[in-house]
């Protein structure tokens, strides 16, 4: 059962770089772990720790004020790259509840909703403003409200965001996707029957 998301307030960290890809979020060599292992300790592994497993000072999550971050304010194309859902597992297990960016990798965006992580798309000016405020005041909090579809900045300005109603609904209730789809069994069965005739050359479609 997925953790529902309604409203969340937490410390937010700014990540100024565009194109933070899934290899940076979770390096490929850590993809083999079963889901019950602690994915959280691998988040941003190679950005966070050097080869001797020592902290890299410059990395935002290693800086005073940002260590307890639960929200990330990124830039363009966050989560681009591979389809690995581990990139979402690691963020969720490390305590992150929401990522705000100007755009996301499509697959990462989809995967987030299946794990109770809320990706929020805001215009570039807003995202830059949020990051500026966070840089100025490390440890500042942001509120992401899925019911109201708003983000509240550290300076208390409120910004509305758009989100697909289906995904919003699923996240608000923490609904299991397969269970939801099963409600459409009649439609699926009817489609399959029609489709078998339509692509009659498909040997597989006789099953």
């Amino acid at each position, binding site marked *: 059962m997925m953790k529902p998301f309604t409203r969340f307030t937490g410390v937010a960290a700014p990540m*100024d770089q565009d194109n933070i890809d899934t290899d940076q979020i979770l390096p490929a060599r850590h993809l083999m772990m079963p889901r019950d292992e602690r994915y959280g300790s691998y988040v941003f592994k190679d950005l966070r720790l050097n080869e001797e497993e020592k902290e890299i000072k410059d990395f935002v999550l290693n800086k005073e004020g940002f260590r307890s971050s639960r929200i990330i304010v990124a830039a363009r194309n966050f989560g681009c790259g591979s389809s690995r859902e581990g990139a979402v597992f690691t963020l969720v297990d490390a305590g992150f509840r929401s990522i705000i960016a100007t755009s996301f990798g*499509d697959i990462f965006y989809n995967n987030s909703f299946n794990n109770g992580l809320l990706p929020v798309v805001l215009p570039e000016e807003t995202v830059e403003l949020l990051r500026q405020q966070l840089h100025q005041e490390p440890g500042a909090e942001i509120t992401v409200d899925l019911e109201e579809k708003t983000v509240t900045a550290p300076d208390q300005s409120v910004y509305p965001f758009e989100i697909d109603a289906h995904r919003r609904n699923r996240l608000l209730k923490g609904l299991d996707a397969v269970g939801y*789809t099963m409600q459409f069994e009649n439609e699926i069965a009817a489609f399959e029957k029609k489709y078998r005739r339509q692509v009659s*050359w498909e040997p597989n479609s006789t099953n």
Partner: protein
Amino acid sequence: MTRPQSLFEKIWEQHSITSNEAGQTLLFIDRHYCHELSFHAFNMLHGNDRKVRHPERTFAIPDHYTPTSGLKISDYVNDDTRALVKNLVSNAKRNKLNLFDLNDKRRGIIHVVGPEQGITQPGMTIVCGDSHTSTHGALGGLAFGIGASDVSHVLATQTLWQPKPKSMRVTVKGHRSIGVTAKDVILGIIGKIGAAGGSGHVIEYAGQAIKNLSIEERLTVCNMSIEAGARAGMIAPDAVTFDYLKGRPYAPQGVNWDMAQEFWSTLPSDRDASFDKEASVDANEIEPMVTWGTSPEDVLPIGASVPDPSLEKDQKQQAALRRKMDYMGLRPGQAISDIKVDRVFIGSCTNSRIEDLREAAIVLNGQKTKIPTLIVPGSGLIKEQAEQEGLDKIFINAGVDWRPEAGCSMCIGVNGDFVKNEERCASTSNRNFEGRQGRGARTHLVSPAMAAAAAVNGCFTDVRRMETE
């Protein structure tokens, strides 16, 4: 008169089961491919006591963690990777899926094997827990990568809920000059539209230069659609597609073939179909390309020089550039042809097909490689064909490490084939992300011909200036 539709819209409509109040569509999925990392999805499925709805529509092919040096226990990098491969095989058997097991010579990289076997066909919806599933769109289907939860959803229901993506047409006009490959075309496109240029869109590649591509070349182009941020990439099926598919093991045969071909012929975009976004590129202007940074959009022609951050006025851009140069170990303004390379990798779902190997062999014939060069075939059948054509002899005589087993290998670096820290690799793969080929690895994406030229000279070289025998 019906509204003109694009290839994407036709396939979307043909697979729409229903839609919900939020405007999402429940899509029927024709083909599902899975690999070792689909284990999360099987665990979710079994954990919820669910069964695979259409096992005949799923194909399991181990490729990510399989060793390329051989299939003995000692060939595996460790017990964990071997366990992961065995786990896929047992999940496939338990659920009665189609399986291309380890010793099956048809086995290889999923995105190579699917088209090669004719499993991937025009007009199909195709998914896999791998972002490079976009490759399959080269045959005129809608193919995209999904995460583990969605893989589990497909196994259980053979469907997926999707908001309708926007459509984008990328027209490539004109003709490629000699020495310019499909890889250079897609790198040129990404350089132009950016790594998020196709975000939220399905790209249809069109234009004369696309029509002129072979299917293998089209596969290379569609493969990197995800690197332009697109959900999927596709190319209208045509005579080239039908010629390629006819007679392949999983393609329709006899009267079924005729029916299928007739249907596939109705799929190409109608003349007046509209797209949400358009871009165009002139093939005549594309040159052999080399990426210099850590995003596939950081790409330049071989004759160019890498950027100089001090010339960048925007502070944020300047900082981003410095970070990339620092990671890549490059001097500001350094000529690309001055960059020394430490190793070469020819392989991956982008460039491991027989045409890619031939392209590399033309450059390597009678030459000696100056740096370690790894060539990994995309499937067991490709390996066999390369050996029949004598390409393996050319490679071995040039000092290449020619591997007997197919797989993803050094593209993702999880099977033991990886690039060392700060080592510079000319690679025919698809991602130059930080750490993609191994921690601290410096990846430059190039075509197989350019990779082979770098292997011979030890630095990036314009393949058009190489003397070949």
